[in-house]
């Protein structure tokens, strides 16, 4: 199938990957509102979710334009089914506890900030503009999630144990962010986006520095789950998330909200 992709189709897939990542993660983080460990964290998590929702509007808005079927960002968010989503599996795993949530956030933020850094010099001016705007937000997310991972990892014995578990669980989902396929090859060729595999070195250096400061041990396994960014196989969790997120749009088709 890969060779048959037109330039626009590849670009559309790329934009879905960017927008679905922020959509699904923003949704997960928004689940915390009203339930965080302390008011200051409740407010901070909501800010992160708000940024991610705003970024989704930009990425999926551009995706809809490229798709050229008169759809909106909302149509893409609320009217696709599981197999049409292109987010990495990491962002769809459940929140579980604050430690898991912040670790997932950190592991994603680290990739996200590196990716956006490269996208700022994209040959596609629209993408470069979105990257320029969102990279500032993501720099704040990364600073906060990294500090929290360090604080909890190097906190009490109990918080350390929570954070080690919080690292062990999502670790097999990290590799997917760096797997390349035909869509990525097309993006590299057009000068639109970097090769995901090429970001791994910088990523590993960043997370190793933070996780070491957090006194946490990187799991040895290099096994990686895949299937989210190609849509080949999501986790079971995504369907439940979409059931909630899309409920009104699905139950009352055509209504305006």
């Amino acid at each position: 199938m890969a060779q048959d992709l037109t330039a626009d189709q590849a670009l559309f897939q790329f934009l879905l990957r960017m927008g679905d990542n922020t959509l699904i993660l923003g949704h997960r983080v928004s689940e915390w509102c009203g339930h965080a460990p302390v008011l200051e964290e409740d407010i901070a998590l909501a800010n992160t979710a708000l940024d991610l929702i705003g970024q989704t509007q930009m990425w999926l808005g551009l995706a809809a334009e490229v798709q050229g079927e008169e759809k909106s960002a909302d149509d893409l968010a609320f009217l696709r089914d599981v197999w049409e989503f292109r987010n990495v599996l990491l962002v769809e795993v459940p929140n579980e506890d604050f430690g898991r949530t912040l670790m997932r956030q950190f592991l994603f933020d680290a990739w996200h900030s590196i990716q956006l850094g490269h996208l700022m010099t994209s040959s596609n001016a629209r993408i470069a503009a979105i990257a320029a705007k969102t990279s500032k937000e993501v720099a704040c997310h990364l600073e906060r999630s990294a500090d929290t991972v360090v604080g909890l990892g190097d906190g009490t014995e109990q918080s350390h144990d929570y954070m080690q578990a919080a690292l062990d669980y999502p670790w097999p989902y990290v590799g997917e962010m760096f797997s390349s396929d035909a869509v990525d090859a097309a993006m590299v060729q057009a000068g639109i986006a970097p090769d995901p595999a090429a970001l791994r070195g910088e990523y590993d250096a960043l997370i190793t520095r933070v996780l070491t400061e957090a006194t946490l041990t990187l799991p040895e396994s290099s096994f990686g789950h895949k299937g989210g960014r190609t849509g080949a196989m999501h986790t079971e969790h995504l369907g439940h998330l979409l059931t909630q997120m899309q409920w009104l749009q699905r139950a009352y088709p055509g209504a305006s909200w």
Partner: protein
Amino acid sequence: MPAGYRKTLIRQIGQHAHSEIVGQLPEGNWITRAPTLERKAILLAKVQDEAGHGLYLYCAAETLGVSRDELTEKLLDGRMKYSSIFNYPTLNWADMGAVGWLVDGAAILNQVPLQRTSFGPYARAMVRVCKEESFHARQGFDVMRKMATGTPAQQKMAQDALNRLWFPALMMFGPSDAESTHSEQSMAWKIKMNSNDELRQKFVDQTVPQIEFLGLELPDAGIKWNEARGSYDYSDPDWSKFFDVIQGNGPCNVDRLAARNKAWKDGAWVRDGLLAHARKKAARKHAAE
């Protein structure tokens, strides 16, 4: 500062702060089901503001020598109350409109005068709160308007939300002045600025034309313009229901408190962990100097 004044202020500001925090829950109930990205962002920003309001108010209470944790524990074990309005469920999306429009609308009427309350830290917190509340009421009305002019199903949701929340909103002003236990002393101390009935009438008078504008049916057959008074007559809420909710028998009392308790209990290791890290870091810095 007289002891009675201080005690009353702690009770009032504390309850107010608790109401903001518990008040996150009924609307938070719909964040993950908001129908568009923009609605989700607006609702999330709104519920986040409520966390902020709680935070400002706890800080105001702290200037009276009571800590936020102390107040929180009193909320969690039921020694302190929060506004009963948040013990009602949010059952359809139009509730996100009705809560902003009616509940925040009623709250604003209660809160605007408090910007001039005699206790400075409370008054200053209220200035910030009121500035943000008008965003809340407006976004609520905007949702309501969209629903009231939408498909038949949406109009049904709008009417259902209005009917369910009307009397609970009226009850937010508290029992009639004759029966309100703390009113007289609080007014003398200028930590309460208007009587309950006065504010309730003001709310009815400003809201009835808005209901008519939306084209919804009035939620109370007793609502009639009274030419002589220059105000709307309305039916008195069933106060026995109000006292039921205060006694803990509202539709959501148990769930609301359980949710707050869970958040607090589940978050303990996080709060302790981050504090332990800050102490270690300070000690290391100290050792290095």
